[in-house]
C-alpha cells in the first residue's frame, strides 16, 4: 500500500489541485452573486433593525437604537392585529386546500380515463398570476353592488353579502381566492404521491382481509406522508407571506381586518420609508417562520419514525 501511494500520489495530487482551483473559479460568480443579492440585503436589513434609519427623514443622522424597534414591535397593537390576521388566514386556507387536494387527488388516482386531461385542467389556476386572480375572481365576482354573486343572491331573494366591507366576509373572500388558486398545487402534489404507492401493497392488504378504509389509513397515508408534509410546509410558509391578493382585493381593509404581516412590512418600510421598524418586522416574521419550520420538520420526522 505504501509503495502504491508513493508512486501514484504525485499524479493524483496535481490533478486534484487543478480540479479544486477550477471548481472555485467556476463557483466564484455564483457565490459573488449570492453574496451581493442575498447576503448584503439580509445583513443590511439586520443592521437597519437596530437603528432608527428612515428613508424620508432627510438631514438627520441615523442612530443605533439597540432593541428599541423590537420593543416597539412587541407593544404595537397594529402589528399584532396583522399577525392575528395572518394566522387566521393560514388556518383558514391550508387545511381547506389539503382537504380539497386530497379528495380530488384520490378521485383522480382512481380513474382510468382522462387523468391527464384533469391533471392539466387542475394545473391551470397555478398558471394565472395571483394579481389577475384577485382582480378577476375577486374584485369582479365579489363586487358588492353589481357583482354577479350578489346579483344571483338578490335574484334568489337573499340579501347581498358585504364581501369587501365586512371584516369577516372580506377575510372569507380572500380565503376563497387563495383556496381556488392553490388547491391545485395540493392536488398535483398529492396525486404524484398517490401514484408512487405500489398497488401490490393494497392487493396484499385486501388478501389479508383489510377493508378500503383500513388500507387507506395503514398503507396510503404513511406512504404519502412525506410529500404531504412537504406540500403543507410550502403552503404554510406561502400563507404566512401572503400579500399580493390582499393588496389587490382589500388593501388590508376594511379597517385593518385583512392586513397581513407582509403587507404591513411593505407599508411601513417601502411606502412609509421607516426602514428600521419595517426591518424589525421582517426579521420577526423570518424568526417565526424559522422556528415554526424547524419545529415542524423535527415533529413530522419524529412522527414518521425517522429520528
Amino acid at each position, binding site marked *: 500500500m505504501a509503495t502504491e501511494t508513493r508512486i501514484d500520489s504525485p499524479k493524483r495530487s496535481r490533478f486534484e489541485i487543478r480540479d479544486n482551483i477550477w471548481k472555485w473559479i467556476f463557483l466564484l460568480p455564483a457565490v*459573488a452573486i449570492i453574496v451581493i443579492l442575498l447576503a*448584503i440585503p439580509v445583513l443590511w436589513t439586520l443592521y437597519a433593525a437596530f*437603528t432608527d*434609519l*428612515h428613508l424620508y427623514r*432627510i438631514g438627520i443622522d*441615523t442612530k443605533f437604537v439597540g432593541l428599541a424597534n423590537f420593543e416597539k414591535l412587541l407593544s404595537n397593537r397594529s402589528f399584532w392585529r396583522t399577525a392575528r390576521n395572518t394566522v387566521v388566514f393560514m388556518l383558514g386556507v391550508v387545511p381547506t386546500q389539503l382537504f380539497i387536494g386530497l379528495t380530488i387527488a384520490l378521485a383522480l388516482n382512481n380513474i382510468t380515463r382522462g387523468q391527464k386531461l384533469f391533471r392539466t385542467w387542475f394545473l391551470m389556476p397555478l398558471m394565472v398570476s395571483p394579481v389577475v386572480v384577485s382582480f378577476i375572481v375577486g374584485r369582479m365576482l365579489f363586487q358588492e353592488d353589481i357583482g354577479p354573486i350578489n346579483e344571483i343572491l338578490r335574484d334568489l331573494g337573499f340579501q347581498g353579502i358585504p364581501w369587501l366591507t365586512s371584516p369577516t366576509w372580506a377575510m372569507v373572500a380572500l380565503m376563497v381566492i387563495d383556496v381556488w388558486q392553490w388547491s391545485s398545487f395540493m392536488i398535483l402534489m398529492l396525486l404524484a404521491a398517490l401514484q408512487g404507492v405500489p398497488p401490490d401493497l393494497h392487493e396484499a392488504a385486501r388478501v389479508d382481509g383489510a377493508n378500503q378504509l383500513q388500507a387507506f389509513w395503514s398503507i396510503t397515508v404513511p406512504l404519502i406522508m412525506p410529500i404531504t408534509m412537504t406540500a403543507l410546509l410550502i403552503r404554510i410558509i406561502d400563507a404566512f407571506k401572503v400579500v399580493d391578493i390582499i393588496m389587490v382585493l382589500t*388593501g388590508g381593509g*376594511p*379597517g385593518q381586518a385583512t392586513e397581513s404581516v407582509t403587507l404591513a412590512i411593505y407599508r411601513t418600510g417601502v411606502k412609509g420609508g421607516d426602514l428600521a421598524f419595517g426591518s424589525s418586522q421582517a426579521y420577526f416574521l423570518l424568526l417565526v417562520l424559522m422556528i415554526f419550520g424547524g419545529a415542524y420538520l423535527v415533529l413530522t420526522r419524529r412522527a414518521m419514525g425517522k429520528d
Partner: protein
Amino acid sequence: MESNLSRRQFLRLVGGAAGVAALAACAPQTAPQAGGETAMSQEKIVIRYAGLDGMGARVEQFMLPWVEENGYELERGAFGQQELTDKIMQSVATDTYLADIFQFPSNARADVISAGALQQIPDLVLEAIDFDDVLPGIVNTLSWEGNVYALPYDGDIHYSSFRKDLFADEDINSRFKDTYGYDLSPENGAETWEQWRNICEFFTGWDWNGNGEEDDFGAACMTKRGDTLWWGFNSRATAYAKHPEDPAYFIDLDSGEARVNNPGFVRALTEWTEEMQNWTPPGGTNFTYGDSLNAMNGGRVVQTYNWDAVTSATAPETSIIQGKQGYNILPGSHEVWNSKTGEWDYFEAPSHAPFHAFGGWVIAVSSQVDDLAYDAVWGFVTHLTKPESGLKFVTDLTGASPYRFSQMEAVDEFANGPLQLGEEVATDYLNAARETLDHANAVTDQAFGGWVQYRDALELGVSQALANELSPQDALDEVAAAFNEVSERMGGLQRQAELYARTLGM
C-alpha cells in the same frame, strides 16, 4: 450612540457598491482611440422626463413637435400614481438621479425641496410663463421659503358636485321640503354638511333614476384605505375643524401636537361613517376614487365631491349624466371647532373651508441636470407650462384642472373645446374652482415632511371607524398618537410645526 455614517451616506455606499458591481458586469467595452483618448460623444441631447403614465403620455404627445423641432430627444419614464411618488422620494432620499424633469405631487414639496433635489426656477422662466397669472393658492404649492421651485401643471382641488336636474324637479323638491322644511338648491347644492346629510337620506331607497329598482342612494365618496381616503375624509372634516381665525388645521402651530382627534374631526368622522354606511351604494365604505365617480356618473347617487367629477361626467361611454350636474365649493358649517378656546363657535352664515386636496401635480427640474442638457431642459418646461400650453391641458381630457386667472375666464374653451361642457356647466365649474383656490379659509393639503406616514396613519384609523372596528373617537385618538409619533420621528413636534408654518406661507 451615533453612527459614523449618515443615513444618506450609508444608502449611497450600499447602492454604489451594488451599482459598481452591476455596471462592471454590464458595461460595453470602449474602443481606445488614437492618442489614448475616448471619442467625444456626438449624440443628440436627451431630455429625460419622469411622470404619471397617462398624464406623461399627454405631455409627450404635446411636447414631441417642440422636441423634434429643436433637435433633442425625449425619454419618458412612466409610473403609476403611488409608484411615481415612491420613486421620487427614494431618489431624493438616496441622492440618485431619476430624470431631468419630473412631475411630482406638491404635498411632497417639503421633503423634495428641502433635500436640495430641485433647482430654483430662474426669473427668466417665471416671466416667460407669466407666473403672475397663477392663482395664489397654487403659487403656494410651488414655493418654499419665498422661492419658486416648481411650475404649475394641475390645480387639484375638491369641489362638490350634485344632480342639478333632480334638485330643480318641482315634485321632488316639494317632497323634500315637506320633510326637511327648506328647498333644494339647484344652483348651489348642499350649502352645509347638515343639508348634505338631509339630501343623502332623502335620496336613498327610492327609484329616482327611473330604472325600475330602488337601488338609488344619496352620495358616494372615496373611502378606501390606500387609495384616496385621506382626501375623502379631510374634505369632509375641514368645515368643522378649520377655524377662520386660525391658520392651522392638521397640527397646532405652537405645540406641534396633532389636532386630528379634536371634536371637529370626531364629529366629521361620526357623521361620515353614518352617511357611508347607510346612504351609499353597497360597498360604499370601501370605495376607491373611481368607484365614487362611477356611482355618480352611472346615476346611482345625487352628490359627491371629487377632483374629476366634471371631466369624467363628459364621457358618454361612462356617464349618463352629461349636462345634469351642478358644482360648488365644498359644503360649510354653522358650527366650527375652535382649537384655541376649546369650544364650538357659531357662525350666522355657513363657514366654508374648501380643501386644496392634493394640491396638484407640479413640474420641477432636478438639481442633477447635466450641463449639456441645461438649456434644453429649461426650454422644455417653459414650453410645457406657458399659458397657451396650460390652457390646452386643462381644457382637454388630461386630468389636469385649471390653476390660472386666465383659465378661470376661459369659459368658451371649457364649454366648446374638447371637454364640451356647455356654457352653464363650464361656468359653474370655473366658479367653484376659483372660489376654492381663492378662498380665505381654504385648507392647504398636508405638505410638511413625512406626509406619506401621516396619510397612512389617518387612513388606517378612519377605515377602522368606517368598518366599525373602533368608535370615531377611539380611532382618531389612535391617529393623533400616530401623528405625534411620526412628528417625533421626523425631527420633533416643534420642527414639524415650523415646517407646517412654512407650507402655509408663514
